[in-house]
């Protein structure tokens, strides 16, 4: 079955796609630089939101790739390469994080030594929350992610040429390591970049909360790409709507998972009613944030849940396309809701700014450019993967 008999013909995405991506990236970056000149603190909060979204997308996609290897999933094999392409953003994370490292004083309350010295709680957390350790551990995390990205994808691509089945075996072992490391590193990322914006507050479920959004976002991006690419005929003609079923199911499952985790976090804090824990939710309930919190429940849980509830909805390309875009937007809104109220801790009042729209534009452009680069170089399908034929034969 390892012969290239899937009927896949390599065809890179059109130049127009690249031009559009470059245009978005250029406009976003130019306006982003203006934003940093006008108000570096406000801009860095917007930048952080988009940065966290990129981590969600890239690392979440690599998680999907390794999950497929580890679980021996067959249905997702025809789509694995697309997740690998999205994971192609991982090596750039370390460069993208540089502006954030320069604006740490604007973002993080705990970076000011005067504040820490006059605050017993922050003093106690100082051994973890200090600038050198923060920078070092996050750089190491980016490097680990990059390393695993290359280790896994290089073998996956090599198989396209050699068809060597042993490469799948090696990748299964690598994936085992990655899943373990992923669980720790994604928690540290969530805690470091988002939870520490309000350093007095803590929630032990926060890492899982961020993880649930991460995987949700990665599945949505994968679904959107698969549906659009198949519509334009870039994938093999043998793909059926049946193949979408598991994508729809996984998006549905992670909608429910997020609801479960988010509610668990809320209910325990609500029930215990301890001032040092409830403050975080109060910051998200004061002023206009109350509406944002209610909208988050509707946008992040209720709408996708009912949109994907029925059996036909999970295989309907139109519905999936809509829900995938919705989910990507909802995940961005979730991150926005997590990050922006932290501004108060940094000593300024929140207001909506045009900057919040600038960085997502640059981010979308960036992902498009990376995606197009990848399709130029590599096959859109793992053509000699031993599981591919079984994946293509899949039907409900």
């Amino acid at each position: 079955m390892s012969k290239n008999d899937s009927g896949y013909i390599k065809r890179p995405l059109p130049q127009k796609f690249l031009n559009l991506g470059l245009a978005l990236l250029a406009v976003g970056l130019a306006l982003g630089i203006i934003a940093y000149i006008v108000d570096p603190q406000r801009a860095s909060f917007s930048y952080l939101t988009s940065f966290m979204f990129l981590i969600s997308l890239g690392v979440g996609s690599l998680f999907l790739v390794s999950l497929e290897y580890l679980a021996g999933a067959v249905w997702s094999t025809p789509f694995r390469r697309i997740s690998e392409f999205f994971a192609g953003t991982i090596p750039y994370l370390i460069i993208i994080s540089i502006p954030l490292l320069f604006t740490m004083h604007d973002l993080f309350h705990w970076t000011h030594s005067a504040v820490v010295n006059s605050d017993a709680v922050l003093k106690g957390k100082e051994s973890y929350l200090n600038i050198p350790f923060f920078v070092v551990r996050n750089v190491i995390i980016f490097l680990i992610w990059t390393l695993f990205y290359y280790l896994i994808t290089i073998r996956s691509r090599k198989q396209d040429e050699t068809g060597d089945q042993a490469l799948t075996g090696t990748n299964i072992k690598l994936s085992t390591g990655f899943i373990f490391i992923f669980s720790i590193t994604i928690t540290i990322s969530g805690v470091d970049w988002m939870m520490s914006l309000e350093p007095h507050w803590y929630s032990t479920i926060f890492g899982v909360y961020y993880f649930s959004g991460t995987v949700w976002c990665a599945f949505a991006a994968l679904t959107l790409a698969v549906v659009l690419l198949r519509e334009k005929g870039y994938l093999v003609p043998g793909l059926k709507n049946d193949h979408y079923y598991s994508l729809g199911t996984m998006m549905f499952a992670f909608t429910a998972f997020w609801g479960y985790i988010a509610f668990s976090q809320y209910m325990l804090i609500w029930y215990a009613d301890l001032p040092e824990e409830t403050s975080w939710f109060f910051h998200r309930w004061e002023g206009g944030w109350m509406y944002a919190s209610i909208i988050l429940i509707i946008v992040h849980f209720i709408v996708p849940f009912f949109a994907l509830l029925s059996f036909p909805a999970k295989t309907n390309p139109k519905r999936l396309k809509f829900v995938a875009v919705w989910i990507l937007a909802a995940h961005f809104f979730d991150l926005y809701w997590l990050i922006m109220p932290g501004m108060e801790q940094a000593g300024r009042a929140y207001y909506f700014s045009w900057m919040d729209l600038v960085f997502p534009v640059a981010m979308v452009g960036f992902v498009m450019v990376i995606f197009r680069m990848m399709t130029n170089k590599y096959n859109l399908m793992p053509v000699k993967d031993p599981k591919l034929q079984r994946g293509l034969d899949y039907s409900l």
Partner: protein
Amino acid sequence: MDRTDKLFGITALFDNPDSIINAAKKVVGEGYKKFDVNTPYPLHGMDSAMGLKNSKLGFVTLFFGFSGTAFILLFMYWSMSIDYPMVIGGKPYFALPAFIPITFEFTVLLAALSTVFGMIIAFFNLPFNDHPLHDTAYMKRVSVDRYGLVILADDLLFEENKVRELFLSLGAIEVEKIYYPEKVTYPVFDAKFITFLIIVAAAVSALTYFTLNKFMYMVPYNWMSEQDKVIPQEKSVFFADKFGMREPVEGTVARGFIPYPYMGIAEPKEYLINPVLPTRESIALGKRKFLTFCSPCHGNQADGDSRLRGQFPSPPSLHTQRAIDFPDGRIYHVITNGQNAMPSYAAQVTREERWSIVNYIRVLQRSKNATDEDIKEIKKESSSNVQK
């Protein structure tokens, strides 16, 4: 099972999943409507090969799931907010976040049960004891290692030879005719037998009930959880007024208890005289008790600056000339009896402690209104302390 000579249908056995899916597609293509497929395990792609539409079972699940949500929310609203409202953990009566886990569980429970029972009863028509395919060689094979297809005789296109040829052309390894079974009457379902069962069940239940609960009733060992003593709030069978909790006999005083003669009188004509000397120990005790019981409203220095920050009416300062002029007994009376919004503290602070609080209040009043001579005195004392 005995068979009649009425034809039910023709079965065919296939030996691999691909050929059965192919066969199902062909049978649909030939235009047959009444046919069925039996396989030892579910096959991917069979639904579409057989041209089956999506099951309506999902709607049963949805309906009962939502019914569960609505029922349990209303039930918790009724039981926790209307029928037996109880404050738990300082939460509102209708504490929605606390109810969500139960709502979720009940929704899932009802949805799952309705799915299983809806499937078995409404969609499978079970129990179906005399299906013609039961007890045939065909059924034995398809529940082990073969894939079977049956076309029913009441299909409009059914013609014995054509069906047989179709099966053989599809690669069937065995083709067999199945006849309807003889109508079997099951003695278990006989009306007389069922009536007999019901009567026996009722009689045995009644007999058991009366034997165990009436004739041979024995108190089970209850680990002393039930005792003959009267517990608080319990009804007494001994006293004529049925009160388990007794009032003291009129005109008596409990041992060690000194009654306060002006209890319940707002402005008594005379007051007690302070029996507790303002010793260092008494003032220290008074200070401790004052800070515990008095300061939440009166403030640590008795300035009337409540720590409750206006959530409760602040009492007046104890440093007014009026309060300074109060006799000790008057202050003791306020603590013991209460005054205006202030309740009696007789239950919280003992008699001696109350007098000590009075002594401490005197200390506070003196210190707030210290004269020059007092200060000289203190300086003298503290300097003499230093010399020591």
